[in-house]
């Protein structure tokens, strides 16, 4: 009982991080189950699991909302940021530990609200986007959607305040801006975007609830409102939200790739410039989500150009990632396998986004399976692979034990085969006109065999992720004892004892002048691993 109390009331950044991980994996499990249900439903024409489209729409809503707001963002900016950043920058804890504890409480409250979807008689069915007028006239519970978004949004804002302050002011002497881990830079960029854009999302979802329950008319054209205002507000946040997911996940991949290639990050400053570039353009591209929404022609063309220009910072980051492999010493351990999987998936996902930057091509592609396939490759699946690889990477540090290498690799290959079967096929039939968010597809009977193939792929994904998680549970309970630094990383989070002791009594590393988080090989010549100083030094 006291252990439970210790965890609930903890202000220790590592425990807050682990709480974020457990909550987000719970959201992932339920939202993943929804995806499996949808795939079974679509495996044959006509009703399969349920004859009620409303039921299917609730699965669809929960899958999208929970995967993005309940799993990816909290796992990346909640778990990874909390667990690793204070250790990476040599800080004793985050700047505001109590605020941090409060943010994880808000996050759990948000998860509980989201799960109420399966309890209330009128579950929300507004997709994760909540477009009015549908969201203001549906019999579904739009308020539940609004308050879920608000709670998770507040958790994120508190995290943003906390981590921007921590990274800016609490770095240990010697950890300069030029010696920050790429993941720390990525999180810094992600939280700048969260602070700027989350309030806009909060405004948008609050206004639909006002419209539906309090009789205001922000989005009702018959009373002077405008339906497009919502879409602009929503995507003004939700496109940057893609980078709030992308930056930390690619940051995790940089950490894993540098460690398992035992190599300096290729052209470090170029990668940092790429991160800054993404933050700068993130707010000027949202109209590419509205290419068929009836926006003015001039802004559709204008944002075609800004959207295409995203390829520059993203391209620089990919060059940095692939360049880090050059003359490396690559060890194919489980975390590295997942990270290399991300490089492959991101290449497909990123490049298939280029047609979607062009409004004339989007007139056909928008709202089809092509879009769904694209964003699963680029954000959903690549991000999840990075999260799984990252959890495998930090697993020995968190638990003090090793996972099973063979099972970890088998889990990877199952998942990797599954996602390519599902999402490549999805893009292919999307190109032939299969619209997204369909419960049934009587007008497109020719796609039935492709749908069945995707359902088969979804089964592989389910087996793969389940194996990966079982491997963690087994490893945490029965695995071999892990050394403090099993991967031989030069980064500061690996200099702590395993598992890292609670913040107040922790011995702080001493950082030498020639230390660098990626100081391998020639770069490490003369550089010494920071030695733990005695307590209070």
């Amino acid at each position: 009982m006291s252990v439970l109390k210790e965890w609930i009331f903890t202000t220790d950044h590592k425990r807050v991080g682990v709480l974020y991980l457990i909550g987000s994996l719970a959201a992932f499990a339920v939202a993943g189950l929804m995806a499996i249900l949808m795939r079974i439903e679509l495996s044959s024409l006509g009703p399969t699991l349920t004859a009620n489209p409303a039921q299917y729409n609730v699965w669809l809503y929960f899958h999208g909302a929970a995967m993005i707001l309940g799993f990816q963002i909290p796992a990346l900016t909640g778990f990874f940021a909390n667990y690793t950043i204070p250790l990476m920058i040599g800080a004793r804890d985050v700047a505001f530990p109590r605020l941090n504890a409060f943010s994880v409480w808000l996050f759990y409250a948000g998860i509980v609200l989201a799960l109420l979807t399966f309890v209330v008689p009128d579950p929300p069915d507004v997709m994760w986007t909540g477009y009015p007028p549908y969201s203001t006239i549906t019999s579904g519970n739009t308020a539940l959607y609004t308050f879920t978004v608000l709670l998770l949004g507040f958790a994120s804002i508190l995290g943003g305040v906390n981590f921007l302050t921590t990274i800016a002011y609490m770095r240990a002497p010697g950890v300069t801006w030029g010696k920050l881990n790429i993941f720390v830079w990525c999180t810094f960029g992600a939280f700048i975007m969260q602070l700027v854009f989350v309030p806009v999302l909060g405004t948008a979802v609050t206004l639909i609830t006002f419209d539906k329950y309090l009789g205001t008319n922000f989005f009702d054209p018959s009373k002077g409102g405008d339906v497009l205002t919502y879409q602009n507000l929503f995507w003004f946040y939700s496109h940057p939200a893609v980078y709030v997911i992308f930056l930390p996940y690619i940051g995790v991949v940089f950490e894993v790739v540098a460690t398992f290639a035992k190599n300096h990050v290729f052209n470090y400053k170029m990668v940092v410039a790429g991160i800054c570039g993404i933050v700068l353009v993130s707010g000027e591209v949202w109209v590419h989500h509205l290419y068929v929404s009836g926006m003015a022609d001039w802004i559709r063309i204008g944002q075609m150009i800004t959207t295409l220009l995203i390829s520059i910072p993203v391209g620089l980051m990919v060059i940095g990632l692939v360049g880090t492999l050059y003359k490396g010493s690559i060890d194919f351990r489980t975390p590295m396998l997942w990270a290399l999987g991300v490089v492959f998936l991101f290449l497909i996902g990123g490049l298939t986004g280029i047609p979607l930057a062009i409004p004339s091509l989007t007139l056909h592609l928008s709202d089809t399976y092509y879009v769904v396939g694209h964003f699963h490759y680029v954000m959903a699946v690549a991000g999840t692979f990075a999260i799984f690889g990252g959890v495998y990477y930090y697993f020995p540090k968190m638990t003090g034990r090793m996972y099973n290498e063979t099972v970890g690799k088998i889990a990877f290959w199952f998942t990797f085969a599954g996602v390519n079967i599902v999402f490549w096929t999805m893009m292919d039939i999307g190109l032939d006109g299969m619209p997204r968010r369909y419960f049934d597809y009587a007008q497109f009977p020719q796609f039935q065999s492709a749908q069945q193939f995707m359902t088969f792929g979804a089964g592989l994904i389910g087996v793969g992720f389940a194996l990966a998680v079982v491997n963690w549970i087994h490893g945490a309970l029965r695995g071999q004892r892990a050394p403090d630094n099993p991967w031989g990383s030069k980064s500061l989070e690996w200099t702590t004892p395993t598992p890292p002791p609670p913040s107040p009594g922790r011995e702080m590393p001493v950082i030498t002048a020639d230390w660098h988080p990626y100081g391998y090989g020639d770069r490490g010549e003369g550089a010494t691993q920071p030695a733990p100083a005695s307590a209070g030094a």
Partner: protein
Amino acid sequence: MSGTLERLHRLAGYAAIVPFSSTVFGAQPFDDPARGWDRLWYDVLVDISVIGIAFALVAGYFVWRYRRRAPDQQGSSPRLSTAMAVGWVVVPTFVFMADDFFLAANGWKLWNDYRQVPAERLEVKLESGMYAWDYTYPNGVKVQNELRVPAGRPVMLRMTSRDTIHSHFIPDFRVKEDSMPGRVTYLWFYPDKPGEHVVTCAEYCGIMHSYMSGKIIVLPAAEFDAWYQQQAQRIAGSNRTKTPEA
């Protein structure tokens, strides 16, 4: 996959024929956006495939070539000189930017084809509602879910909605646009030969969203005219029979 290959073959055919037919024979004073779409898609597909395969080959080669051979072997990437470091930013930036502007220019050209509606069009009003498409022809004839149009004449839809947002998607003509309450949007397409084409809703509009579909029936011009006159007379007839009662 077979769908993709088939499409590539079809596109290669278009790429050879279409510029020829429109310049030499001068059959129509406008470019059919659907064919322009197929051509631009082909160009973009080649573009992204080249970039993707180049990156994948380099990454794959590195992964194979620099695999760890001894347990405590370290990486040995060279330190970049300032010139090299700047060069690795500037050169890719210009390459990517050049490609971006190439794609933007082509995308913009096709965009203008999509948004400039030829003058000799048939203009039909569309009101969408949960879960049907209601079309009104210039002469007042109303039809639901089945739009008959003549072959060889551009068709424009002026669209609005009476409830939620819908999107009028005709996959065969490579076009869709949302219809929504309080605003009027438009799209046009060129039905060049007789046939039937699926229309389906592409914007989530409610519980029965996936059942909101219809079709566009392209008739030979003479056959369409006959049908159109007949419908017009039926309206006139029903108006005449009503008038004495009023």
